[in-house]
C-alpha cells in the first residue's frame, strides 16, 4: 500500500519533479553552505581549526596559512609549544590519492610504425604516491618538518627534512632554516591544486631547453625551481606577513642527498609585498631569482668518464631563473600571474665538458627563454574550487644555431603550451581530516619535441580521484 497516496500515474509523473526538487535542495545547500576545507590535518588537530583557515582550498594556502607557516607553524598565542598538547599528540599526516586516469601522447617512439612514432594511450585505476608529513614545533620558536614521500610503488625518499629557528631575538625578520626545503616560491608547487602527470608540476618551474631537434635535454644537468633544495634559508617577514623577504644558500645538487654532484653553491632570493585593494581582498606582488651553477664534468675512476666520482663535479657553468609574480584577488575569484625568464650556459645546454682548453661545439649558444603562467581560481565557498591554468614558454635564443652540417634550430623549438582545467570539492570540512573529489583535464604541446620526427608533441591527461589526508 502506498501511504503517500496518489495514483500510479501520478507517482510516475511526480518522480521527475521529486528528483528535481531533491537535486535543487541539495544544490541549494551545497552552494550556500560555507563550511571549511582542510590540509595538513596534523596542524588542524593541534589547533582545532578547520583546514579552511589556513587553506583557501587545501593544499593552497590562504594569507592566514602563509603567515602561520612563515611564523614557524605557530599561531603566536603562546599555545604553540608541544607541551600544550596532549602527550598522545603525534604530528603526522598522510596523504594519498586513489584515482582513475587516462594519459595519451600523440608521438611516442615505437617500432611497429613506418615513422617510428605512434600515439600511445593508457588508462585505468591507479593511486598516487604516499606522503607522510610530520611537522610543527619542537618548542616555542623551534620548528621542523620531515616528509618521507614515496612513489606509487612504495619507494621512499625524503622530500623535506629541515629544522628552523623562528623569531630569533624576538624578531619576525630573523628566521633561519636548515635542511631540504621548498624554495620560497609564492606559488608553491608542493601545494599545487592539480594532480595529473602533466599539471602535477608547473612547467615553467622545470623547463629546460632542447639542444637540437631530436636531442633531449642535457641528462647531466637537471634542475627545477619547483624541486625542494638543500641548504640554509633566511626569511624575514612583517608581523602581519604583508612584507616577506628571503635568501637561500643552496648546494648545487637539485635537492639530492649525499653530495652527488659538485661543491658549488646556488642562491635563491625572493621578496614580495601584499596590499589591500578596497574590498577586493589582499593582493600580492613580488619577484624571485635563482642563480645557480652546475658541473660539466667529474673526476673519474677506472672506466673513464662513465664512472664519475660523486661530488667531484667541476667545470661549473651558470644558469639563472628570474620571475615576477602577482597574486590578484577579486573577492571569490583570484588569478596568479607569473613572468619567467631563464638562461642556461651554452656548456650546460650542449652537455659539453668545460675541461681546460675545451671549446664549445660550433653553433652552441646560451639558450634563453621567457615564460608566463596564469592560474585562476573561483572559490565558490571553502568546499568548492574551480581551477584553470595556462602556462606558456617561448624560446628567445635557441641553444643551437647551426654548424654547417646540421641546420639551426627552428626559432620555436621547445616552445610549450599547457592548459589545465580542474575542480575540487570537499564534501566535509573538519579539523581532523580532509577529503576531496578531484577532477582534472590537462593538455600540453611542445614544439618539435617528438622523439623521432622532431615534430610537435602533444600529451593529455584526464584524472578523477579521491584525494584524502588524515
Amino acid at each position, binding site marked *: 500500500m502506498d501511504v503517500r497516496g496518489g495514483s500510479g500515474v501520478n507517482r510516475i509523473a511526480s518522480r521527475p519533479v521529486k528528483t528535481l526538487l531533491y537535486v535543487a535542495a541539495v544544490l541549494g545547500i551545497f552552494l550556500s553552505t560555507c563550511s571549511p576545507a582542510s590540509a595538513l590535518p596534523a596542524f588542524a588537530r593541534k589547533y582545532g581549526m*578547520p583546514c579552511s583557515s589556513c587553506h583557501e582550498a587545501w593544499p593552497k594556502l590562504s594569507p592566514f596559512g602563509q603567515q602561520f607557516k612563515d611564523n614557524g607553524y605557530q599561531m603566536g*598565542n603562546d599555545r604553540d609549544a608541544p607541551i600544550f598538547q596532549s602527550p598522545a599528540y603525534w604530528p603526522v599526516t598522510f596523504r594519498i590519492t586513489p584515482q582513475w586516469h587516462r594519459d595519451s601522447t600523440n608521438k611516442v617512439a615505437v617500432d611497429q610504425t613506418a615513422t617510428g612514432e605512434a600515439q600511445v594511450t593508457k588508462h585505468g585505476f591507479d593511486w598516487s604516491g604516499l606522503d607522510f608529513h610530520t611537522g610543527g614545533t619542537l618548542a616555542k620558536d623551534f620548528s621542523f618538518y620531515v616528509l618521507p614521500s614515496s612513489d606509487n610503488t612504495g619507494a621512499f625518499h625524503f622530500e623535506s627534512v629541515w629544522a628552523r629557528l623562528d623569531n630569533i631575538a624576538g624578531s619576525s625578520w630573523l628566521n633561519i632554516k636548515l635542511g631540504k626545503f621548498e624554495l620560497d616560491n609564492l606559488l608553491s608547487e608542493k601545494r599545487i591544486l592539480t594532480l595529473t602527470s602533466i599539471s602535477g608540476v608547473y612547467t615553467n618551474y622545470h623547463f629546460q631547453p632542447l639542444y637540437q631537434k631530436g636531442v633531449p635535454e642535457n641528462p647531466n644537468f637537471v634542475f627545477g625551481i619547483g624541486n625542494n633544495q638543500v641548504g640554509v634559508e633566511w626569511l624575514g617577514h612583517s608581523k602581519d606577513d604583508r612584507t616577506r623577504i628571503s635568501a637561500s644558500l643552496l648546494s648545487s645538487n637539485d635537492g639530492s642527498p649525499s653530495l652527488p654532484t659538485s661543491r658549488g653553491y646556488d642562491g635563491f632570493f625572493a621578496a614580495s609585498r601584499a596590499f*589591500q585593494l578596497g574590498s577586493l581582498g*589582499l593582493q600580492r606582488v613580488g619577484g624571485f631569482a635563482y642563480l645557480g651553477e652546475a658541473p660539466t664534468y667529474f673526476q673519474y675512476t677506472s672506466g673513464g668518464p662513465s664512472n664519475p666520482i660523486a661530488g667531484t663535479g667541476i667545470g661549473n657553468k651558470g644558469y639563472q631563473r628570474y620571475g615576477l609574480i602577482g597574486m590578484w584577488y577579486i573577492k571569490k575569484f583570484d588569478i596568479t600571474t607569473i613572468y619567467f625568464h631563464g638562461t642556461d650556459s651554452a656548456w650546460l645546454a650542449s652537455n659539453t665538458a668545460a675541461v681546460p682548453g675545451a671549446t664549445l661545439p660550433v653553433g652552441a649558444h646560451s639558450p634563453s627563454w621567457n615564460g608566463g603562467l596564469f592560474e585562476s581560481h573561483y572559490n565558490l*565557498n571553502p568546499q568548492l574550487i574551480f581551477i584553470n591554468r595556462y602556462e606558456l614558454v617561448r624560446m628567445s635564443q635557441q641553444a643551437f644555431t647551426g654548424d654547417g652540417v646540421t641546420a639551426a634550430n627552428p626559432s620555436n623549438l621547445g616552445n610549450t603550451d599547457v592548459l589545465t582545467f580542474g575542480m575540487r570539492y570537499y564534501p566535509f570540512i573538519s579539523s581532523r581530516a580532509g577529503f576531496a573529489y578531484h577532477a582534472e583535464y590537462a593538455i600540453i604541446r611542445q614544439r618539435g619535441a617528438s622523439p623521432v620526427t622532431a615534430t610537435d608533441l602533444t600529451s593529455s591527461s584526464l584524472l578523477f580521484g579521491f584525494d584524502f589526508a588524515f
Partner: protein
Amino acid sequence: MRRLQITKIVLILAIAFALPFAAYGQQMESHEGKWTGHSEAGRQLYYRYCWGCHGARGNGDGENAPYLNILPRNFVVASFKCRSTPTGTLPLDQDLFSTLGRGINFTNMPSWAALTDQQRADLVAFIKTFSPRWKTEKPGDPIQIPAEPALTVASIKHGGELFQKLECWKCHGQEGRGDGPSASTLTDSNDQPIRPYNFTSDNRSKCGKTNQDVYKIFMTGLDGTPMPSFADVIKPEDAWDLVHFLRTLQYNNKSPELTLWLSTKEGAEIVNAKKVQNTYTGSGVKP
C-alpha cells in the same frame, strides 16, 4: 495540477536557497575607521575561519570546543572580555576589530592580522548577528583613559600597596605568577576552571600589551571571567600606579617601569629574588 507542482518547485527552491541565509538572522554592519563591515561578507569568512571553535550558531560549541581548556566565546550571550566599555555592556565595533587583529594571548584565539581590515570589519558585522542584544542594546560609552602620569618610584610603590589592598594577590599571587590562594577555585562564565594571568610569563595581556590596555582591563573588567571591573573602587591615578607596579612583575620584559624599579636598591632586591635565573621550562617556554 501542473501549476501546483510548479508552485511547489518554486517554493522549495526558494526555501532551499534561503534557509542557510535566513538562519543567521538580520543583516548587520560594523564601522571601524574608514571600513564598513557587512555581515553577509562576514558570514562567508566566519564559515571559513571561525566555526571550528565558535560553532555554526556562534554559541561557542564548535567541534573543537570540547578540547579547549578555555572555551570559545559564546557570541549569542555577547559577553566579551576585551572592551573599552563598562562591564556588562556591549563592546564597540573597534574592540571586536582589535581583538581579531591581536588575538587573545594564552587562549587558542590567534591573531587574524593576516586578514584585510575589510575582512575583519565584515567578521565583526557577522558576529553581531548572533545575539539579539545587538538589536536591543547599544554599546556602552567607552571609558575615558586619562593621560598616563609620570613614572616614579613612588607610583610603583603605591601600586604595590594597592596590589595588596585590593587583594589582587589572592588570585594573581604575591609574585604575580597567577598562583594565588584563590587561583585554583576560579571558574569562568562557562563554569570552566580558569587560571589568573601570570604576569611573569609575558608582557602581553589578553587584551593588548600597552599600558593603556592594562589600564582598560582594570576599569572594564574581563566579562565572562572572575576579573572584575575596579571602575567604582579606585581612582584613575591609582589605576595608573597599579599599572606601573604590574610592569615590574614582568621581569623578562625590559619596560621603563622595571628599569626604574631595578635602579632602586629595594626594587633590585625584590626582582632578583623572584627571578628564576637562566632556566627553561620543559616546554622551552621562557619562564
